[in-house]
């Protein structure tokens, strides 16, 4: 009897198969967390993709096709992502977008590569907008993967380029989460600092377990005792917020250079006391000087999604480049678009943007943004606080270029 019920269920599922692809839409499956602890950042990403699609559609779409963004919740779980990937394929999706979590990215790079090998003629293109592990554009690079964000090493290039211009920084403390990403950030920081500012003393290099520390005060006091005047950290989520909060409470006076200071929810948790101290290396902030068209784009977004702030500028870049590549190729076939994207260079709202042909990594200007009270025209999270950067805080895309070990295998 119990089994009969499961049979009925299975049969019901079998019939509930999805509708096929329709010819006049270009579907992008957005595979990221939409529920659970990482739901908010996934939701932001989805909003920006949807908005970018609406903007493109208003101008007639891509190659005459309307762009449709389908949000699929992967719960930041690699295995679940593969199920959602299959769901996307069954709906006739040929483009997927993902950003949260290198574990998910790793599973998807692999899955896309295998799918394309096993299903020729039905290839899928992977638009990575935020998973920054360098390995995806190095040892594990794939023809079907394009990254629109600077990878962790490039960000460190940018951070250290910026430090080069900061004479007052003499002692640096590196702290990070004890896993592959944290270790990679620490290694890149040591390597770049020794090369670019040999006079700087690295007074500490520490890893702490991922997401387990409740009170960072002991770490912060170690940092203060070491006399550091800058902290470099790749921490994200609670690990970053708690670190910054503790540092501010204990009266740390130096700079805290982060990768993810601008991520969702951080501003409220850090609070006003963090202004002037916390910096984040990003490709865009909403207080940059903007052209009218770009300002309209940003304001339009913030008006439509009033609870959300414009953060993932790279999504707008990715959508524009997708459209340009399709126009260049005269087709919306992923393979043709992939070839067209290789080596594409254009003038974006923030400067020159290039998609490297050798490893499918984007090069774009980076900005060392400061969490500030002053000079803020667009605040974040309904606070009068926001992210600003000055003239010296700009690092050109070309300067962040790193050597690649990628041996790209292109389909014939």
């Amino acid at each position, binding site marked *: 009897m119990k089994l009969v019920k499961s049979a009925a269920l299975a049969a019901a599922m079998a019939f509930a198969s999805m509708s096929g692809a329709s010819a006049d839409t270009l579907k992008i499956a957005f595979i990221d967390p939409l529920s659970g602890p990482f739901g908010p950042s996934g939701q932001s990403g989805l909003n920006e993709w949807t908005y970018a699609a609406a903007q493109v559609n208003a101008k007639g779409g891509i190659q005459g096709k309307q762009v449709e963004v389908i949000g699929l919740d992967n719960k930041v779980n690699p295995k679940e992502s593969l199920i959602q990937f299959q769901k996307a394929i069954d709906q006739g999706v040929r483009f997927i977008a993902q950003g949260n979590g290198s574990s998910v990215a790793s599973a998807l790079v692999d899955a896309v590569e295998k799918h394309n090998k096993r299903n020729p003629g039905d290839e899928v293109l992977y638009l990575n907008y935020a998973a920054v592990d360098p390995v995806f554009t190095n040892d594990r690079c794939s023809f079907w993967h394009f990254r629109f964000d600077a990878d962790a090493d490039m960000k460190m290039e940018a951070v250290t380029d910026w430090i080069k211009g900061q004479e007052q920084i003499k002692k640096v403390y590196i702290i990070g989460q004890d896993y592959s990403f944290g270790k990679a950030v620490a290694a890149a920081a040591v390597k770049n600092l020794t090369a670019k500012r040999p006079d700087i003393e690295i007074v500490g290099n*520490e890893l702490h377990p991922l997401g387990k520390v409740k*009170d960072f005060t002991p770490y912060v006091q170690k940092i*203060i*005792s070491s006399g550091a005047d800058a902290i470099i950290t790749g921490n994200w989520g609670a690990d970053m917020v708690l670190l910054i909060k503790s540092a501010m409470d204990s009266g740390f006076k130096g700079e805290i250079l982060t990768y993810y200071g601008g991520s969702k*929810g951080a501003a409220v948790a850090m609070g006003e006391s963090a202004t002037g101290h916390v910096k984040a290396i990003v490709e865009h902030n909403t207080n940059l000087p903007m052209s009218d068209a770009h300002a309209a784009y940003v304001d339009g977004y913030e008006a439509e999604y009033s609870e959300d702030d414009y953060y993932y500028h790279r999504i707008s870049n990715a959508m524009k480049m997708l459209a340009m590549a399709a126009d260049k190729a005269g087709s919306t076939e992923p393979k043709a678009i992939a070839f067209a994207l290789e080596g594409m260079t254009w003038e974006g709202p923030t400067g020159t943007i290039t998609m490297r042909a050798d490893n499918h990594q984007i090069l774009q200007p980076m900005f060392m943004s400061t969490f500030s009270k002053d000079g803020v025209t667009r605040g974040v*999270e309904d606070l009068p606080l926001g992210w600003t950067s000055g003239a010296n805080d700009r690092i050109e895309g070309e300067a962040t270029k790193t050597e690649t070990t990628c041996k790209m295998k292109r389909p014939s």
Partner: protein
Amino acid sequence: METIVFSLLNGVIYGLLLFMLSSGLTLIFSMMGVLNFAHASFYMLGAYFAYTISEASSFWIALIFAPILVGLIGAAVERWGLRTVHVNGHVAELLFTFGLAYLIDEVVKIIWGRNAVDYRVPELLDFPLFELFGAQYPAYRIFTLFVALAMLAGLWFILNRTRAGLIIQAALTHPHMVGHLGHNVPRIFMTVFGVGCALAGLAGVIGGNYLVTDPAMAVQMGPIVFVVVVVGGLGSLMGAFLAAMLLGLLQTFAVAIDTRFADIFGFLGLSETSEVGAISIASLAPMLPFLLLVIILMVRPRGLMGDREL
């Protein structure tokens, strides 16, 4: 020297916060045998209530009313939830609280959003109290210390100087005896559960702005509370206190130690660059509680001060 002073101070404060959080669970667990998975969720509720109340009025009002509110919710959970499940045994009770923790998490996300809320230290206490070896010491941390001590004193007074306290003490060590003395056991259970939750709520009021108030705070604190209770031992608030202190100090001191495995076991040929050799004591600090938990359960299942085995 400065490391020792700092570690001592931080360890004690963190330990006291842990004790505030776990004392309620020790009461509940010892009397009712329920290892409440949702205990840390009540801690979270305390923080969120305090945030909402202090937005509307002031932190001081929140300090009093938020724990009471949490206590009432706790009592209600016992009355209409746990009691129903009780007949199905301890595993069912454990699973009930497991599900409850899950639900509270989701409900908190709906009501207060999925990001951190801006729950601040009251302005009255938002200043550096003193400076020690170049680092400032926030006044609020010392305030935390006093609240915890006051709670400790209050708890001690109630348990040792009031009739209700004596009944509870008897019940802590001999849970089966209370019924024989003619007391209304269900009501005692409900009260104890409520009071235990209120204590967690108080810890939330204090800890929410000391740390961060977000929906992940319950999950973060959950397991460590168990460690305190189990290591401290059944039926022993003193044990919970010692365990909390031990954990607080252990973790803060471990952070201060830069030694790596390679330095310790170097004589065995463990190299600095190997995966095991590169692990430092400091990076292990947050894992120590769980190591301690497993070891205690293996070696001394009654905990540090417990009067009986789990």
